[in-house]
């Protein structure tokens, strides 16, 4: 009834081509920037983090619906589930970042630190940082694989206990992720601007990647549908995904404004330095970030109809996906490379990692039925509608 996805050679070859092109461009970019290793490592971090975080956010998407006893999401659940399996692969990029630590994190130069950084060195030191990085990757990998295992089990037998167990795992997942999503954002991103701090930062980064994860779910849904899969996904599902994209884009903007407004308002140099740097050196991109990630999805998806039309939806999703890549770029680059740089290095690296991400997704998506048919609320997903 639900057409199983086949990871065909054709798809494979497209993706491999993408990976290769990406790799070639990336290598070329690296070669051009050998005297500018900051930029290389910053790009590794950018893409490594962005897609890993998206994978974790996709897992979170599933988990939160499981805990919320939702039914509608079962129609698309397997997409984010397969996305989440990228975590161990993304982890490899993050481990790679450890090698380039000195080029990104200036606190890692333990020999000459000012007073404030010395004060932080109990937390920000290469050893502890590496330990945390490894721990996040391991922990997250275990969590996503554990849940996936239980999810797949339900395909073979209908057992309510299994479903309860899934909820148990989801509980563990959400607690651990609630803590590590923030701390990982502080570690990997916030500590680039080592003096700067913002309590909201962890949540801000999380919401940014979460919106992006929703956008990718929509994009992948579109891709799969255009290949003739996932035909059971109807307008109501699109509408709901659209609402997610719409709502969380607003929520992201809310957090962006909250952080910016408070820092703008108090105007304390230890905080404003973050924005001053971004506005002065990245001026156009700084404002573009808000326009792309807030105004675009807001205006596109405000109407009911656009959320239910795949074309509109996909347009918004692509904008949002690229927009949040920019958001991460704005979070990482000013602290590490100081001035905006964009070239084949950035393109290559992104295409390469995206290729790997997609390859991993399709591979994993092909390994299981496209829907969890034994999910107890599965049928609910096909008999509901959104109020007009």
């Amino acid at each position, binding site marked *: 009834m639900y057409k199983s996805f086949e990871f065909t050679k054709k798809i494979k070859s497209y993706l491999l081509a993408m990976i290769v092109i990406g790799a070639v461009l990336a290598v070329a970019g690296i070669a051009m920037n050998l005297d500018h290793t900051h930029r290389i490592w910053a790009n590794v971090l950018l893409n490594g983090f962005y897609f890993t975080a998206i994978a974790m956010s996709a897992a979170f998407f599933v988990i939160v619906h499981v805990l919320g006893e939702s039914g509608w999401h079962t129609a698309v659940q397997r997409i984010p589930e397969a996305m989440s399996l990228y975590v161990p692969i993304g982890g490899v990029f993050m481990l790679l970042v450890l090698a380039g630590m000195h080029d990104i994190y200036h606190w890692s130069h333990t020999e000459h630190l000012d007073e404030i950084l010395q004060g932080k060195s109990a937390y920000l030191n290469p050893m502890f940082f590496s330990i945390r990085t490894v721990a996040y990757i391991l922990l997250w990998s275990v969590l996503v694989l554990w849940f996936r295992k239980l999810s797949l089990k339900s395909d073979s037998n209908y057992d309510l206990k299994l479903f309860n167990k899934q909820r148990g795992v989801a509980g563990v997942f959400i607690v651990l992720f609630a803590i590590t999503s923030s701390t990982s954002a502080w570690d990997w991103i916030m500590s680039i601007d080592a003096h700067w701090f913002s309590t909201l930062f962890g949540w801000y980064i999380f919401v940014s990647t979460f919106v992006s994860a929703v956008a990718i779910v929509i994009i992948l849904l579109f891709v799969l549908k255009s290949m003739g899969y996932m035909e059971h996904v109807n307008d109501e599902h699109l509408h709901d995904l659209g609402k997610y994209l719409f709502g969380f884009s607003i929520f992201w903007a809310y957090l962006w404004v909250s952080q910016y407004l*408070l820092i703008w308002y108090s105007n304390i140099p230890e905080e404003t330095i973050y924005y001053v740097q971004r506005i002065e050196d990245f001026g156009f991109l700084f404002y573009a970030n808000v326009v792309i990630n807030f105004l675009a999805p807001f205006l596109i998806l405000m109407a009911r109809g656009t959320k239910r039309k795949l074309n509109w939806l996909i347009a918004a999703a692509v904008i949002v996906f690229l927009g949040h890549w920019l958001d991460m770029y704005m979070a990482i680059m000013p602290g590490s490379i100081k001035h905006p740089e964009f070239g084949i290095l950035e393109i290559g690296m992104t295409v390469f990692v995206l290729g790997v991400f997609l390859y991993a997704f399709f591979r994993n998506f092909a390994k299981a039925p496209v829907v969890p048919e034994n999910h107890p609320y599965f049928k609910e997903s096909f008999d509901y509608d959104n109020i007009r």
Partner: protein
Amino acid sequence: MYVSPVREPLISGEKSYSKVTEDIYAPMTGKPGKLWFGGLTLALIALGFGLFSIFITVWDGIGTWGLDRTIGWGWGITNFVWWVGIGHAGTFISAILLLFRQKWRTSINRSAEAMTIFAVMCAGLFPLIHMGRLPLGFFIFPYPNTRDVWVNFNSPLLWDVFAISTYLTVSVLFWYMGLIPDIGTIRDRLVPGIKKKVYSFLSFGWTGSARHWARHESMSLILAGLAAPLVLSVHTIVSFDFATSVIPGWHTTIFPPYFVSGAVFSGFAMVLTLMIITRKAINLEDYITKAHLESMNKIIIATGSIVGIAYITELFIAWYSGVVYEQYAFVNRAFGPYWWAYWIMMTCNVITPQLFWFKKIRRSFAATFVISIFVNIGMWFERFVIIVTSLHRDFLPSSWSMYSPTWVEVGIYIGTFGLFFTLFFLFIRFFPVIAIAEVKSVLKTSTEKFIKKGK
């Protein structure tokens, strides 16, 4: 609409549509009981005491409060934030849960929204009373005047004026629009007379026409879509009251979402406290069941944990910042003269809700009642900790001081309880406590046993 049979029914007992009408209408009929009169009397006494305390404040001056040159806000603003927080559950339930299609909201949204409105009314009193010159309070409105002075749109307190009044207005509109069909139901149950005329007037001429229903649903959805960010904005702006400053312990960027989460947390706790009593008192146990309890308690854990994470984040970042003032502010919270307030807050808000991880506890009315009260207390202390312990020792040690409330401040707080409960007692007597039409709309799929009438 299909509902999985695995799901727990929300409404227990054998119900038909008319039974629902009957059950929910029942508390409004007959003579009110002793409990009701007793409660209303107590509430009115508290209200009277509060009004007296307000009179003293206005007549003699804010000097009758325990504030001083260092601590400009104490119980007053603590209570303001606390009440506003409580006023977040209703709209959260009716708007955000509507958007998330949570059916369990139907049994509790009406009373929760009522509580929201009453709580916001209580909250709104404080920013007025705490002014040194209440009679000139109208200065906060941007009205044209001969001096050409407008207002300061930079001020979060001004934002509050807009946020709270918009919130109150929209909440009342939302609540009342939901009430219209149910008032129609009451109207049609009444024998002709003055009472019927009054309800007829209040029902806005409701007929139950399918066209009206369609528009009503559409309006409700969009209103919910507007109310959802509005709920967020209100406590966000309340948090701006503190976070825009430079005071360590106040100025922190996590405040907006953390305040919102805390508000929903405390709001749910208050709704739980009251609903657990109310469902017993007016025999609505079939409609507010363990299923509702569990769902609400899950939100309590979620929001409570978010608040807990925010506490720890603040603490960690204070250390991480390397700023002496920040660091001192947080050490002082935990180990300074007001350490007890901090640890009450921590215990009540972070530790007690974690008990809801146990299914038995989150499905127990008694346990929930106790924990909900803990949360109410804890959230009050959270605001006290933020306001008083941040202010009492800020930048210049020469100005550090201590604060304790006077009877006047306590009196005003008691008075707001009086106001809240007076309104609540009147509400449960004169309005349907549960949204009759909404319950009926999910009755078929959500009741233990639906009795179908007709052919």
